[in-house]
């Protein structure tokens, strides 16, 4: 996709040329640059007008013509190799096609619209320049009537104005104005340039967006078609139109009872590639445009710009998605922390205070467990919206993960922060979940403000977290501002190193396993090991509830070593048990603290102690381990790899998602977080995101594993994307080894089990 900036530059550059030849050559080369192409050529009526990228003595005309006619979609160049090629029609009489080819990969359908637009701009420029040179000749031929010269001059001026109109629209796209406003500008400019009584644009709602209707023109024109109903009554709808509409068509307008008049309508589809997104209509109640061919071409350029605006708006949406939590639409952890850091930096300078509210929901786990994840998601969405509603515009709300939210307040005081916290508590109290009326959601809110010895985002987060735990320990919903002594009291109610030592010795830690299956056959090929703590008082605890404490207590190294040995032994047992579990792998989550400890020794101990084949052990790490000591983490992973153990990148896409991690370390597997998987079966954006990750994995030669597959539609879509492996409730919940054994040892399902879901 070219950036709009490049389109604007392109337009500005072309209007600066004075000869057709210079404009063609610069236009083609600049188009090649924007699309990273080696070849750019203009083909007219079966002949190559101009081509770039070939050696002078071998212009490959026959090959270029084959691409222009669509007979071929690639071309092989000496010393370059095979190039993907594409052709698009940019002019009608004579038929002109633009051909480009590049070595760096195939063209996507989304590139067609901007390519066509650039081609049309090039054609308009050429026409303008042709007129200009004709004009020069005219001036020299004194015998010609002055009026004729006048008319030509007027044409030329009109063309220049048209280019300026298009440039104005380009600027609006560059400035990322709301789509509605850009389309209004398109309609407005088009009605002015074409002298139409009205111009309307109708765009269908795509990807969950609302449909848009805009109109511009004279009062008379707008009274006819200025509303969606009026336009519909006149037959000007968003319905798909044929690509080639060469002239205005007559149309009867007005309703029965009023005057029915003949008008002229010119329509053009708004296309993205071959897909019609909507249409643009111009209406004349008098004689129609002065010159039909010019008007039609100009009108199509406006429609092209409308398409660009729509394409661009959806691109911006996608960009936003990368930094927003797909579930609630709130800033995700990385964006929120970035904003927090910036606010703290600003506060250091201005002396104003920043407050951070750390909100942890109470009772959410019950909702999830009882009602399922889909219902849980719905609750999170509602709560995210309610928390946002409690804050004013300049305050920023983020979802830090799970059931944790945070609010950032600038220019805050302790009082104002408590006020917001109270608002949140009150509004949440009203959020009772329809679970036989019994489950209600509360929250523990910890508050921290910047001061002399707390002026960074990290410290704020740490303090707010401590304050939050202080509230949580009371067992009630509430809010508290951080106080110095809390740092200690917090450890009081939390498990200490001694407690974990005891738990380890008493065998309170257990490992649950969730099968990882081949998505095509549903046959288990591995298991992910998940630690649980069978707490004597609190029951079975999930890792999120105690691992942070284990890490802080320093016991993570010992607990991690135990897990490695335990799962290795279990895996050996399974591999020995049956022919089809012979190659079973076991995946273990690695904590950042383990990575910095003596991981290699522990791995060797586990492998030697169990006799497990190293390649059967997969270490899952998240991107967060690189945030500390990058080099040390890297060394440690490389060392693990050299032992023959395999590496998987976990939770890809939820954190920093820097490709540099993937490229620098020998990861063999890429795990797609459940957040993304849950976006499947919904709007196209969610699907595209997963597809991008799967393709990324494939390109880098990594196996992709989708997590949290719960619905058949998710499985079907993942299969169609050729995602190899997956795990989730659809196949099996995590369970103790004995419970999983049966599932693993079952003979592979025959064909009957495979075809239960049909890809759409």
């Amino acid at each position, binding site marked *: 996709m070219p950036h*709009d900036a490049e389109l604007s530059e392109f337009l500005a550059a072309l209007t600066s040329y004075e000869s057709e030849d210079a404009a063609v050559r610069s236009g083609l080369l600049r188009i090649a640059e*924007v699309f*990273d192409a080696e070849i*750019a050529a203009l083909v007219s009526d079966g002949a190559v007008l101009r081509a*770039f990228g070939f*050696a*002078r003595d071998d212009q490959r005309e026959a090959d270029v013509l084959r691409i222009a006619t669509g007979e071929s979609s690639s071309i092989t160049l000496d010393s370059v190799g095979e190039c993907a090629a594409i052709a698009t029609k940019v002019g009608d009489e004579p038929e002109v096609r633009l051909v480009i080819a590049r070595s760096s990969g195939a063209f996507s359908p989304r590139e067609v619209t901007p390519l066509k637009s650039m081609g049309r701009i090039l054609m308009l420029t050429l026409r303008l320049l042709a007129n200009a040179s004709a004009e020069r000749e005219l001036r020299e031929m004194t015998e010609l009537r002055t009026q004729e010269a006048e008319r030509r001059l007027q044409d030329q001026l009109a063309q220049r104005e048209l280019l300026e109109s298009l440039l104005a629209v380009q600027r609006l796209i560059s400035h990322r104005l709301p789509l509605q406003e850009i389309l209004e500008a398109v309609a407005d400019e088009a009605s002015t340039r074409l002298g139409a009584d009205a111009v309307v644009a109708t765009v269908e709602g795509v990807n969950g967006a609302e449909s848009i209707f805009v109109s511009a023109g004279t009062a008379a024109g707008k009274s006819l078609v200025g509303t969606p109903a009026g336009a519909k009554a006149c037959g000007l709808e968003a319905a798909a139109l044929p690509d080639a509409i060469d002239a205005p068509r007559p149309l009867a307008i007005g309703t029965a009872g009023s005057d029915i008049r003949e008008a002229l309508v010119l329509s053009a589809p708004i296309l993205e590639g071959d897909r019609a997104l909507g249409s643009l209509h111009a209406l004349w109640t008098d004689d129609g445009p002065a010159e039909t061919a010019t008007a039609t071409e100009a009108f199509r350029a406006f429609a092209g710009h409308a398409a660009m605006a729509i394409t661009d708006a959806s691109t911006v949406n996608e960009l936003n998605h990368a930094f927003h939590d797909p579930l609630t639409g709130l800033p995700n952890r990385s964006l929120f922390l970035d904003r927090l850091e910036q606010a703290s930096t600003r506060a250091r300078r201005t002396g104003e205070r920043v407050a951070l509210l750390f909100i942890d929901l109470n009772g959410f786990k019950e909702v999830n467990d009882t009602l399922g994840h889909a219902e849980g998601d719905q609750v999170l969405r509602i709560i995210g919206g309610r928390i946002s509603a409690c804050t004013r515009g300049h305050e920023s709300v983020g979802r830090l993960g799970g059931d944790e939210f945070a609010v950032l307040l600038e220019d805050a005081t302790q009082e104002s922060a408590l006020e917001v916290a109270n608002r949140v508590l009150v509004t949440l109290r009203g959020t009772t979940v329809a679970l036989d009326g019994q489950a209600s959601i509360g929250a523990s809110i910890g508050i921290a403000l910047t001061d002399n010895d707390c002026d960074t985002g990290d410290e704020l987060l740490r303090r707010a977290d401590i304050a939050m735990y202080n509230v949580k320990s009371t067992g009630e919903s509430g809010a508290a501002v951080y106080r110095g002594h809390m740092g200690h009291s917090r450890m009081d109610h939390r498990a200490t190193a001694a407690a974990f030592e005891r738990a380890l010795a008493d065998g309170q830690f257990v490992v649950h396993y969730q099968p990882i299956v081949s998505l095509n056959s549903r046959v288990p090929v591995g298991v992910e090991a998940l630690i649980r703590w069978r707490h004597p008082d609190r029951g079975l605890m999930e890792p999120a509830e105690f691992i942070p404490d284990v890490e802080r207590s320093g016991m993570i190294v010992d607990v991690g070593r135990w897990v490695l040995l335990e799962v290795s032994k279990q895996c050996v047992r399974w591999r020995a048990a049956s022919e089809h579990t012979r190659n079973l792998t076991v995946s273990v989550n690695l904590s950042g603290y383990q990575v910095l400890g003596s991981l290699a020794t522990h791995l060797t101990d586990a492998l030697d102690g169990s006799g497990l084949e190293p390649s059967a052990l997969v270490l899952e790490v998240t991107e967060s381990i690189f945030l500390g000591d990058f080099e040390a983490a890297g060394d440690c992973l490389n060392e693990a790899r050299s032992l023959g153990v395999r590496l998987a990148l976990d939770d890809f896409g939820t954190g920093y998602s820097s490709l540099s991690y993937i490229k620098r370390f020998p990861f063999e597997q890429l795990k797609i977080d459940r957040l993304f998987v849950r976006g499947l079966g919904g709007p196209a954006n969610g699907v595209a995101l997963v597809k991008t990750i799967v393709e990324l994995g494939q390109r880098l030669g990594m196996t992709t594993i989708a997590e949290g597959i719960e619905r058949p539609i998710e499985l079907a879509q993942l299969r169609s994307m050729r995602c190899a492996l997956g795990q989730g409730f659809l196949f099996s919940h995590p369970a103790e080894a004995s419970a999983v054994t049966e599932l693993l040892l079952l003979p592979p399902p025959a064909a009957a089990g495979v075809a239960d879901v049909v890809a759409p």
Partner: protein
Amino acid sequence: MVVFASPRLELRAVLEGIRDVSGAVPMIGCTTAGEIATGAVRDHSVAISAIGGAGFSAATARASAASDDLFTAGAGAAQCIDEVAGAQHRVLLLLTDGLAGDQQEVVRGAYSVVGAGVPLVGGCAGDDLAMKQTLQLHDGEVLEDSIVAAAIGSDAPIGIGVRHGWQPVGEEMLVTESRGVSVREIDHMPALDVYLERLDAPEGARSDPAAFTRFALTHPLGIQRRGVQEVRFISGADFETRSLTCIAEVPEGGTAFFMTGDRQSVIDGTSAACAEALEPLEGRHPLGVMAFDCIARRGVLGSAGVQDEMRAIEALTGGAPVVGFYSYGEIARTRGVRGFHNQTLVALALS
């Protein structure tokens, strides 16, 4: 022969001296902002390399009055490619006048002649940062406002590497207002304020232009284009209008990010460029390496860093001769049509 010479020298005498030894060998060259020759960076010196022997062919050309029409000049200088038409591997070496306008036009002109099959490489002549006039050299003549080119043909593979050595920091942003080289708004806020805040610039750089320039030297602006990141050195700030001034155009509406670099990252960039240049050699020992190194990188490296950079190059090239110069812009086109770079090191390896 390729000659890189200090602008302070009496160049006609230098060329005479060279010709006394070499005779009428085809020769191109230019003035510099520092000369590089195996193991050392010098000022006020001459660095000469001779390319030839079995398996090599070469031809040179020049185009004058380049600033009148850079495209045509680029195309004119590229004509010499025909004289090495039979060679299995070819490259066109261009030495241009970076003060004469948009050098991508030169690249376009040369590309229109040689096509996609011949890579372009080279740099813009320097004048020890005086920014007044650079000179080009061709077959014993001293030229101004010119482009000189050498077409080199070889039986063995030729490698080209390009790297800048800067890393993006923070989120991507939008350039919401810019005019040419002046960036006025980023994300709808005054560009200078966004720059200072996001990078948490030191107090001095917030009011003192000299301190700002020092800070900006290691914190350029990056702009994203399809498949490539381009680096824009920020040369100054307007504390009144809160805008940033860059040394090359920054398009409005484009995606941008701030970048940071230090000695080490610049040297890492150098190593990566050399490694990239050596890759197509498929294990053959390089006969020689030519480096076109941006003058702004020299500023970041300082005199000690420059020595480290040379050592980094030698560590990879295994004792092969290295020659090059500090330039006002670098040329490297191996893919697509874009080939003019800023803030980069371009390495050419022959085998």
